[in-house]
């Protein structure tokens, strides 16, 4: 359901616009292909003469590679090429070198599953058999997978000299990053409080859990020109990294994004693509690589795990006087900035006089973390929202009232620095408070959890082209893989701006040689930034079409306006001509100067931040610790919802991923540093029978930074569920839960421990 936003000057301005296409719920353009099995995903591509490649991976959590002998594999019938780290180009940027070293271990293996050698052969069976003939001599090193333990002086050091930023004294070499945010006097803030609660929390690493494993097909001829087909969130990212790693120029590598079977941030980097390209270069034949599910879990990016101390002070009437968080994240064996994002987002929902967050990134013997939906925020906000809930509980205050009392709003100095513009947190909280869910009675062993959530949203580099076809139809060409229905929303914005029926528009996601550069599909940026560029490209095309009409009519171009899909004369001296439709102008284009197109390229800014509030009712079985989700409602500020079905879908999907994170999902490592649950059997994502319907309430507080008021919506939904579920479980079980996942053994132990 969509709740119209009525108040506020900006909102009023945007609500004046009468949308014709935007806000409706048409079928998505790629839908029929996807319900008939015609849609081609990463593993569905083939090429004549194609080889298949598989990867030898480290069985050790941490070891020096003494030697690699691939001669046995190379001698095998059917084996066409073998690559190791020796076959790639040394990178000048440390970030790129890390990504390359993650694709193919150089000198050391850093985690169970780290790739060492890849073999291309005439079949998967032969490639796998060849892997067994490769001899790798390892010098096994001590390992550490826990974030707190990796910070101890006794911990084995993964890399020397990888500290960045000014790491405070007393941190060991595994601490690669440190960040601080906040403002105000903490001592003074805590002194004003009537009650102060300090708690420590831990969260497990989770995986994005996309159902489609990584898959790619690469070709490269002796002329040094290559092509890659791949399921990715960014074909330009793949082009730039794969070309750099193999040592060719960007123009020589054309990358086409297939349909993508889920990503959630996990397909914003490369794993197989440079390897397949290197094997294609060596063998002179197309090379296909598809990860097994086990490889996806062992070697593609999970999120960070965390260990956090939170301290919050509150007055008796619910005013937060000070908030402090110390966040320690590990994201595997290579540096990353997820902890920084955690520190920025932890207190973003609150208008605080005194707030301080500190974050450490710690290197451990786990796979290199990849982005996962609002990276860093869910686990940070989980800790803060848990303590706020406990303060409300202790003080006997309503958790939504307390959040309203302290809510960030327009003009609030945010906890991470900037001052907020128009934001929707108060409206979202009020919608939650007014919803029947909040007043519904609870049964025995049930508890209700509440949490706020926040995510920045990004914009970034974006290019869109638009061709006006002679038959009056329109081709929109964009460069961002469609991960959740964006071709529908882009087509809708094009139709809206051009004033033509949606059926006249077809949007495609082009390859890297067919459109200008685009950042990856991430940061909830596509509907915002590609939408913005689409509207601007349409305006360029409209300007062109107005000029054509002026030419036909013999009047000045600036005496022509564009109304409802047609050029119309405007002003005193323009003359009296009937509207000239897009179709008519297009049909006559050859006579008026040739093809008509519009395009727009920008490094966009102005992505609006987004807030959400989640309500959940849970029931905990006191004898087993099993948690059932009884009812769930999501409230989120989406800005203008272009296609409300897919906005709801993002909210529902994010909520359920968060429920999985809260209850059962976790990376489980043994003492030996090996991942114990590299499969969907024991890495337990929610199944259909685990859940009720997820009610989604869209709040439309327009983003001033977008012509239609769009905000990103994709990520915020995963942020509140961790605390919402934890707060619900804590109330139902009668004991405060401080570690995720709240698996049944953990809940039962907490219940029994509290007795």
């Amino acid at each position, binding site marked *: 359901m969509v709740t119209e936003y009525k108040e506020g000057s900006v909102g009023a301005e945007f609500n004046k616009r009468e949308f014709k296409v935007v806000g409706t719920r048409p079928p998505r353009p790629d839908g029929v292909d996807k319900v008939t099995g015609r849609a081609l995903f990463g593993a569905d591509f083939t090429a004549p003469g194609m080889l298949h490649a598989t990867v030898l991976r480290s069985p050790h959590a941490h070891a020096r590679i003494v030697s690699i002998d691939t001669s046995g594999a190379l001698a095998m019938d059917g084996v066409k090429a073998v690559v190791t780290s020796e076959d790639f180009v040394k990178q000048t940027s440390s970030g790129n070198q890390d990504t390359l070293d993650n694709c193919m271990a150089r000198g050391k293996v850093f985690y169970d599953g780290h790739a060492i050698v890849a073999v291309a052969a005439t079949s998967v069976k032969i490639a796998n058999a060849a892997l067994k003939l490769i001899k790798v001599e390892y010098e096994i090193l001590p390992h550490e997978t826990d974030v707190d333990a990796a910070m101890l002086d006794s911990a084995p050091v993964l890399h020397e000299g990888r500290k960045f930023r000014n790491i405070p004294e007393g941190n060991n070499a595994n601490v690669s990053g440190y960040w601080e945010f906040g403002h105000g006097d903490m001592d003074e803030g805590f002194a004003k409080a009537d009650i102060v609660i300090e708690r420590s929390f831990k969260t497990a690493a989770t995986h994005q859990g996309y159902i489609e494993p990584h898959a790619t097909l690469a070709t490269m001829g002796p002329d040094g020109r290559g092509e890659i087909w791949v399921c990715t969130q960014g074909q330009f990212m793949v082009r730039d990294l794969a070309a750099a790693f193999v040592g060719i120029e960007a123009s020589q590598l054309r990358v086409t994004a297939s349909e993508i079977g889920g990503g959630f941030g996990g397909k914003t980097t490369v794993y197989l693509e440079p390897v397949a390209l290197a094997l294609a270069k060596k063998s002179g034949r197309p090379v296909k690589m598809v990860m097994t599910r086990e490889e996806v879990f062992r070697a593609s990016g999970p999120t960070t795990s965390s260990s956090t101390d939170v301290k919050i002070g509150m007055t008796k009437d619910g005013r937060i006087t000070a908030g402090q968080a110390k966040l320690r994240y590990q994201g595997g064996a290579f540096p990353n900035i997820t902890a920084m994002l955690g520190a920025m987002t932890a207190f973003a929902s609150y208008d605080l006089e005194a707030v301080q967050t500190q974050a450490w990134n710690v290197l451990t013997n786990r796979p290199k973390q990849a982005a996962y939906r609002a990276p860093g925020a869910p686990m940070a906000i989980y800790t803060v929202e848990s303590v706020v809930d406990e303060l409300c509980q202790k003080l006997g205050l309503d958790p939504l009232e307390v959040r309203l009392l302290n809510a960030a709003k327009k003009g609030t100095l945010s906890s991470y620095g900037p001052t907020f513009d128009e934001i929707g947190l108060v409206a979202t909280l009020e919608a939650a408070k007014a919803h029947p869910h909040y007043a519904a009675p609870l049964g025995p062993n049930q508890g209700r959890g509440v949490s706020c959530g926040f995510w920045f949203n990004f914009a970034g580099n974006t290019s869109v082209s638009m061709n006006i076809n002679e038959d009056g139809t329109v081709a929109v060409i964009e460069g961002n893989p469609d991960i959740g229905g964006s071709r529908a929303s882009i087509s809708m914005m094009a139709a809206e701006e051009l004033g033509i029926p949606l059926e006249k528009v077809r949007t495609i996601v082009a390859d890297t040689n067919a459109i200008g550069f685009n950042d990856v599909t991430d940061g909830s940026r596509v509907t915002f930034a590609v939408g913005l560029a689409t509207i601007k490209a349409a305006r360029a095309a409209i300007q062109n079409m107005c000029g054509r009409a002026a030419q036909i009519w013999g009047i000045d171009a600036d005496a022509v306006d564009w109304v409802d899909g047609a050029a119309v004369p405007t002003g005193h001296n323009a003359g009296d001509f009937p509207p000239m439709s897009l179709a008519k102008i297009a049909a006559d284009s050859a006579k008026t100067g040739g093809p008509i197109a519009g395009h727009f390229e920008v490094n966009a800014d102005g992505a609006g931040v987004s807030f959400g509030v989640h309500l959940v009712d849970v029931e905990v079985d006191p004898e087993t610790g099993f948690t059932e989700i009884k009812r769930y409602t999501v409230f989120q500020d989406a800005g203008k919802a272009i296609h409300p079905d897919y906005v709801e879908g993002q909210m529902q999907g994010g909520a359920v991923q968060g429920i999985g994170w809260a*209850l059962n999902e976790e990376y489980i490592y043994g003492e030996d540093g090996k991942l114990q649950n590299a499969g969907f059997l024991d890495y*337990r994502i*929610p*199944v259909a029978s*685990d859940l009720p319907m997820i009610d989604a309430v869209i709040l439309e507080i327009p983003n001033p930074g977008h012509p239609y008021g769009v905000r990103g919506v994709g990520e915020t939904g995963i942020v509140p569920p961790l605390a919402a579920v934890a707060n619900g479980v804590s109330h139902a079980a009668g004991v405060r839960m401080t570690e995720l996942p709240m698996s*049944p053994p953990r809940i*039962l*132990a907490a219940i029994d421990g509290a007795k």
Partner: protein
Amino acid sequence: MRFESPDTIEQAIGLLNTCEGTSRVLAGGTDVLVQLRLALVEPELIVDIKHIAGMRDITAEDGGFRIGAAVSGAEMGEHADLVALWPGVVEAMELIGSTQVQGRATLAGNLCNASPAADSVPAMVAANAVATIVGPNGTRECPVADIPVSPSKTSLTKGEVITSIYLPARPDNSGDAYLRFIPRTEMDIAVSSAGVSLTINCDGVVTQARVSLGAVAPTVLVVEDASSAIIGTKLEDAAIATLQAACSAACNPIDDKRGTVEFRTKTAGVMAKRAALIAYSRAGGSK
């Protein structure tokens, strides 16, 4: 690897008995194919037994049912008379995996996989089910309880194949039930489980009972102290509490990624308690 799908049990046994390397019998394949995929086994020979007469049949026999080794869980669930007689065994079977897995998975396969957490086995053990085994030396009958000997190991010898499982006749006023604990609602391996089969008299007093536990020891446990706790009772609270305590006391589980010793021990008792109440109700008892 060689794939064979013989038409007779004699051919199947001949193939298995003369295979010098590793061989696997294929019925539903829901364990075997996973093992192949993960390269846990690389057999020389796969023998598909589904084309052998009787393997896919559920047959009424002496008041009980004989279930062919290749009968799927879905087929068991669709057999109304079988469900009426042994609802606990059928529900145990139907808990294994997804609807898709139910289309293929078999009782005999679940038994031969010899997992301590196999869902159907505690229910079959509570039901006193008997497996018919054919091998190079002829046919023998063996209680289901004696087939798994340790995780992944059975008492079957080379060339032997389970051809059917017999669920016996039972007195009137009998009921059975199976419950397992899993972290989700579906798709998990049992963390602890319990099967209970019992008979009551016309007064609602339990006259016979058999209680089994899964996933809390290397093989299924039969808990005599638990059955004796409820025999002669109407499952009053005290009797149920004794049963629960006896079950927890019998547990000898391991700590692993699916559960702790403490958790398994406690929930096995809870599962047994709840299963006993369901079985009692199915037997016609009212509380």
